[in-house]
């Protein structure tokens, strides 16, 4: 006997993601799911962002890491509210892990919540967490062909940060080619060139954050 099913395989995850999203909207948290390969600069970006946002929007972080809490320790030094999720062998975060982290973070004290996903260009793109935007980092040491090798992540992301542009002269990374490849996969993709080492482009990234916060929640009114 044949039984029609027609059920989305990630439905259970998506249901929890929708519930997470409801919590974030109520607390007026702009939530970003930050993805990249390992070593692209996710934690460095958050360190820079925390400094650059001081006195303006308040940053909080949920950091996913396979075994250690090193990322969380780095961020705590900057006085950022951080929850560490140790994922064990999992290669991505899912909505349920985020739901379980929420009681451990005071969302009322946060305007922008960045969920630092596990370093991986494949699996994290599959799982909605309840975020408003997926964003990703590609660093110049990884190669300009990556958008064509990992199209789903580039397709799902709203913003691509190209990091380590201070190293361009030491690599054969072609910035123009990288952007063309990324826009081939996703024509509407926003792209910002940055260097977490020199601070170049960080102000453009902060403008992006401000714009998208305002777009979602209007001008910040909270004291």
């Amino acid at each position, binding site marked *: 006997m044949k039984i*029609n099913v027609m059920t989305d395989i990630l439905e259970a995850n998506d249901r929890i993601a929708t519930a997470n999203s409801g919590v974030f909207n109520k607390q007026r948290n702009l939530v970003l799911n930050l993805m990249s390969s390992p070593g692209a600069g996710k934690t460095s970006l958050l360190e820079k962002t925390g400094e650059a946002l001081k006195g303006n929007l308040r940053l909080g972080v949920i950091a996913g890491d396979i075994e250690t809490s090193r990322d969380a320790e780095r961020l705590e030094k900057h006085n950022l509210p951080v929850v560490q999720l140790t994922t064990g062998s999992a290669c991505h975060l899912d909505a349920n892990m985020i739901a379980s982290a929420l009681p451990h973070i005071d969302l009322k004290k946060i305007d922008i919540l960045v969920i630092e996903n596990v370093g991986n260009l494949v699996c994290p793109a599959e799982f909605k967490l309840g975020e408003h935007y997926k964003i990703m980092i590609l660093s110049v040491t990884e190669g300009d062909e990556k958008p*064509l090798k990992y199209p789903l992540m580039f397709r799902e992301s709203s913003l691509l940060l190209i990091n380590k542009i201070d190293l361009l002269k030491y690599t054969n990374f072609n910035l123009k080619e990288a952007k063309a490849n990324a826009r081939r996969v996703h024509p509407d993709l926003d792209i910002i060139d940055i260097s977490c080492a020199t601070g170049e482009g960080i102000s453009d990234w902060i403008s992006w954050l401000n714009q998208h916060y305002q777009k979602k929640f209007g001008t910040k009114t909270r004291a």
Partner: protein
Amino acid sequence: MHEMAIARNIVNIAVAAAEKEGARKITRVNVVAGELRGIVQAQLVFSFGLMAENTIASGAYLDLETTLVMGKCKKCGETFVVKDYRYVCPKCQSDDIQALSGTELRVKDIEVE
């Protein structure tokens, strides 16, 4: 290895659907996945076999049907297969393309005894 998480969900969905109909054994599960999902068939079949152990889906055949990435041009209305992730209309060269398919991921149907 997101195939493992996906396989676990496939087993859960198939078993729930079978039990609802009072079936005792699942013999086949038909899954549809868009090309953009990047599912590795061999890994999914292997993971499904592991996850199905000790359930009524144990030993079931998993069929994976991959759907092409399709786009529709918002300018001229042309519908076309997106090859190599090039979201450009082959007729009018516009890059204002609506994605029609390629990211679906679902259990289509199951066969039970």
